């Protein structure tokens, strides 16, 4: 990259929704504005000189229907009056909107049109029942195909993938890995006070998981509810800065992580996935990002991946080359992706455990990696080996349509 790019001052709101003790669907709750303000303020409070921010990018997927609100760029100045009369825009790429906000910020810093960009992600989805939310989320697919798709659109898509996986690699083998994925997600979420599953106290997570056989009569054929991320409200924010930008902000490098490579690929939304057993776009985007960073997957210390469904977690393990096709489930079942495993993944719970405020997820992933690489992860902190000072995040929009992969490196200076 032509300039060094850093990430600093990440912050998340709580991921609000079922599972949180304070969540009551019958009572009025904070709106979109409140989430943007809270996460944005929490970022600004961490830097001595927030007026150094040149630009704001807000990632969001479907506020236009969930909240009847478009034009989110206009909310930047509600975070801080200093952000008014500066560039601000919103970006959308379904559940990869947060990742796109970061990419957009990186590009701006690379283009030298900004030294500091505030990248935000936000989604407030508990405004409608899940069954109508499913309609809205389905806009991430090709609408011409909506008629023939499942009532619960995304669970339907990934249920189909899971069904093929079961058939090819064995139901029990797959479910074992998926159940372990669920367990890891909840256990990690318990360590992060902002996680949606932070209050989860279930004793035997895998037992609970395996007790519930997928039932297509009420839901989808091949997944149960524990295979799915929940409906979430939340926002995340983080600053993207050049070296010059860090100085202007008054932040030492040791508090930041460096972005040493990224990639953003998109596949043709009007086509079905080329292979239901593979997250092809993730495979290709991650490979490109690692190539740009000049490192291999084995050098990565921790990964945040887009587990909107447990099967997506398994398939991304394979797409990243951590396990061969068909061996992802066993890899996970063996504990290799657990927080004390060889490749800790989704250390604050991921989408299933931390929550999935769709447009915010990509930013939340970056915040988690920044926390881990700067030893800011609190109870969720993992021990990173000095030989593997790298992090990787994979943010996916739609059924493997838009993917953002970012490679991060610890700053030791």
């Amino acid at each position, binding site marked *: 990259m032509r300039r060094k790019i850093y990430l600093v001052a990440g912050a998340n709101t709580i991921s609000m929704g079922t599972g949180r003790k304070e969540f009551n669907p019958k009572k009025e709750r904070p709106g979109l504005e409140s989430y943007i303000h809270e996460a944005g303020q929490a970022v600004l409070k961490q830097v001595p000189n927030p007026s150094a921010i040149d630009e704001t990018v807000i990632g969001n997927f479907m506020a236009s229907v969930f909240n009847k609100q478009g034009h989110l760029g206009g909310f930047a100045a509600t975070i801080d009056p200093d952000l008014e009369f500066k560039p601000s825009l919103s970006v959308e790429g379904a559940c990869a909107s947060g990742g796109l906000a970061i990419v957009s910020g990186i590009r701006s810093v690379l283009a030298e049109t900004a030294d500091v960009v505030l990248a935000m992600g936000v989604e407030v989805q508990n405004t409608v*029942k899940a*069954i*109508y939310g*499913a*309609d809205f989320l*389905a806009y991430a697919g090709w*609408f011409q195909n*909506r*008629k023939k798709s*499942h*009532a*619960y659109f995304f669970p339907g898509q990934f249920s189909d993938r899971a069904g093929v996986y079961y058939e090819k690699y064995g139901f029990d083998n797959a479910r074992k890995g998926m159940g372990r994925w669920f367990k890891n997600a909840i256990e990690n979420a318990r360590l992060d006070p902002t996680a949606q599953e932070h209050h989860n106290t279930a004793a035997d997570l895998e037992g609970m998981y395996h007790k519930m056989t997928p039932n*297509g*009569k*009420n*839901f989808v054929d091949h997944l149960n509810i524990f295979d799915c991320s929940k409906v979430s409200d939340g926002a995340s924010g983080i600053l993207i800065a050049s070296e010059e930008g860090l100085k202007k902000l008054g932040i030492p490098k040791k508090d930041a992580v460096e972005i040493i490579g990224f990639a953003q690929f998109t596949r043709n939304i009007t086509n079905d996935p080329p292979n239901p057993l593979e997250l092809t776009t993730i495979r290709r985007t991650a490979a490109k990002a690692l190539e740009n960073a000049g490192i291999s997957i084995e050098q990565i210390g921790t990964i945040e991946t887009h587990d909107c469904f447990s099967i997506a977690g398994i398939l991304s393990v394979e797409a990243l080359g951590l396990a061969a096709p068909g061996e992802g489930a066993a890899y996970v079942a063996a504990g290799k992706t657990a927080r004390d495993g060889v490749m800790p993944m989704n250390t604050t719970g991921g989408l299933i455990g931390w929550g999935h405020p769709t447009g915010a997820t990509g930013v939340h992933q970056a915040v988690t990696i920044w926390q881990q690489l700067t030893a800011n992860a609190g109870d969720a902190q993992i021990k990173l080996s000095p030989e593997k000072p790298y992090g990787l995040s994979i943010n996916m929009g739609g059924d493997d349509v838009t993917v953002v992969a970012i490679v991060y490196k610890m700053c030791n200076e």
Partner: protein
Amino acid sequence: MNYDERLQHVSVLGAAGKMGSGILLLTAVEMADLSLKPENKGKTFVLNAIDLSDEGLSGLMDYLRVQVLKIAEKKIVWLRQVYAENAALIENSDIIEQYILDTLRIVRPTTAMEVAYRSKLIFEAVSENKDLKVKILSQIDQNNPNKPWFFTNTSSVPIHIIENEAELEGRVLGFHFYNPPAVQRLVELIVTEKTLAETSQFALDYAKALKKVVVKSNDFAGFIGNGHFMRDALYGINKALELSAGRPFAEAVYLVNKVSQDYLVRPMGIFQLIDYVGVDVVQFIMKVMNPFLKDENLHSPLLDSMLEMGVKGGQHSSGAQKDGFLKYEKGAPVAVFDPETKSYIAVDSFKTAAEEWLGTMPAGFQPWRVAIKIADKDSHFSAWFSELKSLNSPAAKMAVEYGLNSDAIGRKLVADGVAFNENDVNTVMLTGFFHAYGPVNNFFA
């Protein structure tokens, strides 16, 4: 005439009432689902919602819309298949809206009973008055050329009496929903000696389609549910009267209600249950049942005098509890009616005295909402009631006597031939009254 044809033209009498509206909702949804079957394409389904109250019928349509929406949301996976051929319906919201329309257009609200003259099946849910029921059913039958079937929701009147007096000859049966019909899974099914086999088979098929639990009861006034509840209520009332010899009446009512709820681990105390059903309804059902009982007097002068003073209980149309024996705030009892001063006495004013009588709650106590979820209920209740039996407190003693009496009522229903077996009695109380354990048990002996 097959099942679908029988359900092509139906009337519900008393459709705006608490029971009638629920029966109407469930029937409307079942008819809508039939109308959407490919083989029924082009056939018209009609469900008359008949009631005396115009206002009630307006409210009924609001209720239906809200409820059908909820039902549609729950079966969206199936509905997407049903409407698969309709290219205009793409999103879940489109499909749900269409299903509501398809259901509501079957329903014809009216105050004119004559529309029932064309029906093939008639649900009767008018007030619990035998003469009124007989009059309406016979009038419809005399004017209806279809030889319709009559399903009465009576909870107390023997079916054969309605059958004989309205001259329905095998075309009537008791199909007794529990309140509220849309939620409660229990249906008591009562046939007479003459009821046609095909009619009772249809009733079973219909109950199954509605996912109801059917308990067959013999055709004896009150059947199983009220057979138990009325006697249990009378027992509670008399216990309170006994207890009021040594303490204020309001306090006595409070204590019996408390013991019957907490110590017996039931969803409501007996006086709250009487209020829930309605003081007037309880009195009326006892009055209907009493003439048929040989060796007992199912009558409470206290209920008579409460009603004379205008204390009725029952529910507001919103579902909120009206004041009866007890006065409610946000659903919880806060005061008790005192017939002497004709006013409600705040629970707080006698709480100390009441707590003294009750003593500390025995250690093994689990409230009903917790106990109902315990996997091994048998050992839990066995331990709990053993603990009560070992105690000397008046509350524990009352609870054990109460439990024994409830058990005896259950066994008597079987001995008298009202219920076919003890299991049926327990099913009715577990399913229809949400008890956590059946009244016929070995916990109290």
